[in-house]
């Protein structure tokens, strides 16, 4: 066992080193700067492949990095497709989509504390309101009428019996003023609404129609709900990349949450798809093609000039003028890059598990 873990260590360090060969020394010093600037540790979650049970969690901190953090802390894999992680005050909730399970871990050590599975069906994302967790669930993937929100009692780590049924394809969920805002990306098909669940009014539901396939959503500095609608792919091109050639309109919608109306809707040009979006203090970043572009809260149109070239990525986050991306790869390790938005220089780079999709910050 011992030699095994030493071997593993060697392998891992070699991965980290090989992936940043040239910038090795720079990385070391600048790493410090980055972590000081953003003032938090970073967790990258990697989905792994559906059914292959090889999702992984990586940790990047001021003094330490661990590419296979969860496995090394727990002596076992998380064992599912890691859709997302929700961070509470003390605990973190790792949502395993394909095996319908949530692993409750200590936020600071990622040691497993409990598992939750009864009451989940294809769970996607979670948000916390008080001592309850609200988890979007597809139910059966092929059934378009059984999507719901499961309610997790955070004190007992059990799912409550009462669920909140919603329209098809629930995806991300955020909260404000005791309300849940749920984007309906559409699951295996497509949808075009954001549901608003008023927890203080008997879980009453209002819907806001946006463009097709709404995914990321957040509140901007003006308190608006900003939603990225990716647009629904219609046709695909040929080998080798099979890009989506045509799609329904992709847009960024700004919703007034006082009356659930749309303040403005910035649409992308025809057959242009934005697939990722992140927010950093007044700036909205989105990913189109192989570049990340930026507009601000007050912009009146989409900008697709002066982008940051990032290649093919599957996840991104932004903080303190840094752009954090994970490359798109499901057959071998992904690359985690940190780019300084002002200088456009890649200041840190490391390998992370395959299917990497989310970058989180732990303060």
């Amino acid at each position, binding site marked *: 066992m011992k030699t095994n873990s030493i071997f593993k260590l060697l392998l891992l360090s070699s991965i980290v080193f090989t992936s940043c060969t040239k910038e090795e020394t720079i990385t070391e010093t600048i790493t410090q700067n980055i972590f000081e600037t953003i003032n938090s540790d970073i967790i990258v979650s990697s989905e792994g492949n559906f059914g292959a049970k090889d999702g992984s969690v990586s940790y990047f901190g001021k003094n330490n990095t661990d590419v296979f953090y969860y496995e090394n802390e727990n002596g076992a894999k998380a064992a599912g497709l890691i859709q997302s992680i929700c961070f509470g005050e003390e605990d973190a909730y790792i949502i395993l989509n394909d095996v319908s399970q949530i692993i409750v871990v200590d936020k600071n050590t990622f040691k497993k504390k409990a598992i939750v599975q009864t009451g989940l069906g294809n769970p996607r994302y979670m948000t916390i309101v008080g001592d309850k967790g609200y988890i979007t669930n597809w139910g059966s993937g092929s059934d378009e009428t059984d999507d719901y929100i499961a309610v997790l009692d955070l004190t007992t780590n059990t799912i409550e019996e009462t669920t909140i049924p919603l329209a098809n394809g629930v995806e991300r969920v955020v909260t404000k003023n005791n309300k849940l805002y749920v984007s309906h990306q559409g699951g295996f098909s497509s949808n075009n609404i954001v549901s608003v669940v008023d927890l203080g009014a008997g879980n009453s539901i209002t819907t806001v129609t946006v463009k097709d396939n709404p995914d990321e959503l957040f509140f901007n500095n003006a308190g608006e709900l900003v939603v990225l609608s990716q647009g629904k792919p219609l046709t695909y091109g040929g080998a*080798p990349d099979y890009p989506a050639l045509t799609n329904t309109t992709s847009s960024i919608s700004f919703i007034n949450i006082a009356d659930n109306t749309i303040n403005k809707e910035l649409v992308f040009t025809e057959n242009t798809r934005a697939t990722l979006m992140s927010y950093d203090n007044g700036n909205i970043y989105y990913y189109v093609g192989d570049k990340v572009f930026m507009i601000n809260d007050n912009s009146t149109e989409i900008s697709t000039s002066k982008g940051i070239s990032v290649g093919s990525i599957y996840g991104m986050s932004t903080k303190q003028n840094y752009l954090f991306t994970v490359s798109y790869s499901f057959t071998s390790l992904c690359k985690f890059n940190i780019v300084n938005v002002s200088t456009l220089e890649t200041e840190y780079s490391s390998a992370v598990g395959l299917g990497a999709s989310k970058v989180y910050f732990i303060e």
Partner: protein
Amino acid sequence: MKLCKAILIICMLWCAVSVAQNDSINRLEKVTLLANTTKKQEELGLKKVELSVEQVVKNPTNFTELLRYNSPIAFKDYGNGGASSARFRGTSATNTLVLWNGVSINAIGNGQVDFNAISASTSDNITVNSGGGSVQFGSGAIGGVVQLNDILEFREHQDFDLFTSYGSFNTTSNFFKANIGTGKWAVKVASTYNKSDNDYEYLDTRYKDENGKALKNINGNYKNYGVDFSLGYQFSSLNKIYFYTTKYYGNRLFSDGLPNPSAGTERNEDFNQRNLLKWDLSFNSFKQSLKIAYLTQEFRYYGDKEATEYNFGKSNQKLVNYDLSYRFSNYLRLKYTIAYKVIDGATNDLESRKRNGFTLGGAVFYVPTETLTTSFQIRRESNSDFSVPMSVSVAAEKKLNKSIVLKTNLSTNYRIPTYNELYWPVVGNLDLVPEKSKQLELGVDVDVNKLHLSATYFYIHIDDKIIWLPTGGTNLWRPKNIQKVVNQGFETSLSYTLRITKNQELLATSNYTFTNAVNKKTEDNLPFVPNHLLNYNLEYTYKKISLYAQGLYQSKVYTTEDSIDFYSIDAVRVLNTGINFTLFIKENTKLVLGGKINNIGNNTYYFTNLRPMPGRNYNLNIHYKF
């Protein structure tokens, strides 16, 4: 009903044609001998392993298990009884061809055979041929070929074979076989029935349920049954007609494995039906064989086992094959093959699609000296969907002395894209071309006393290997002709019988394969290919009691090309032991009572990530031959 009708019609046909023919036992023997040589010449330079019914009854649960412990094939199954795919020498499941009485039964959809969804226990002859065989069998014969044959013998005999077993997890495996010959007629009737709750406890204690209790393989139960009927009639020793039919039904739940087996909801049904009519006629120095086959396959996949709606894939194949061979002398024989195949496949997402294939083949078998046999074979398939490369093979076997034979076989082989790869909605890729391989084998067979050793070096170079890959941005997996791979290694098999005293005997058989499979574009090792794969059977018999042990070792495999521990499956070590007690033996009658302990070490082992195999388990069985 249809089946009965078909049989009736065939019987009537035969009665009508029944003409008095000469028949001589001498001639019959000669013909049989010739048939054997013929077959051997066609597989010249290749390595094969044949399995007997004694091996079948030691591993009766499923076909994967039987071959895992008795052949050089590596299997990847999704837990015990789950979907199972086979790969020879580090090639892929689509490069493993399975033949039922000479007819390909690989699925039209994915090009593979699920080795836990076919019944093999009633086959009279199971042969595992390693190496390329496209020149003989067509598409898919790159890694190797598994043959399931029913044997119809005309000599007067009545053989019955009855096997039943019961064991842990409420598992029962049974088969019945009757082979009868009357001189003119040969009949085989067989059936098999297998069933299991398959709810074994998981040994991996790192994972527990919500209450901290051990997890079980729930949602893993299976049930399947099959019936075979074959009939042969010989007008004379030179003129024979055969009809084979088989039907199979399987109903399985797919276990989800760790960490949450209760999330498993999948169910799968398989329906297979195969029919073959074969007519062999010899005249002068000619020998001809006409085969007409009709096969249907269907699977129904239920995402929710309780639901009535399902996804399906179904296909039917019609095949006509005509072989004509001419024997100039003992030294030279020519063979000519013409075949036509029509495939029709459909799924719930895909309207029926037809594919036709027309094949021409020729072969020369030449024996220049008494110790040297050579062959040159060529085959060309013209397919309605692609241009298929020509396959060629050149082979030779040289007998050095009484106990050593040197063998070589050089061949080109191919695998045509499957329906899924071409037509799957959205992701199917109509630009695909067939996979092509160039292969070399160098082998030696050693026979000394009761020791048989066969060792083969193999080199397989595959171009345009089809791989499903995720595509940037759209998150879809699509098949592409992307890889160039080279598989090299050696494969050995050994069998040894030692008669210690008059009452004591030791029997050992073993297969060992070393494989190095490399993606030539990246120079990385291919995933899921074990470097070392070893199995062995040791049996000690004292009078009526025999004790045996069977072992399996598969070295660590990586699940991605990165070769990192995180993406790997630990080495597998399993040991099974058993005892057989012959209660009664007399002439053709034999009654054996057996008991077996599988995984005696109670080891935790996996063939796919976190889909555990069973711990220690038990089985009692009765095998009655009369």
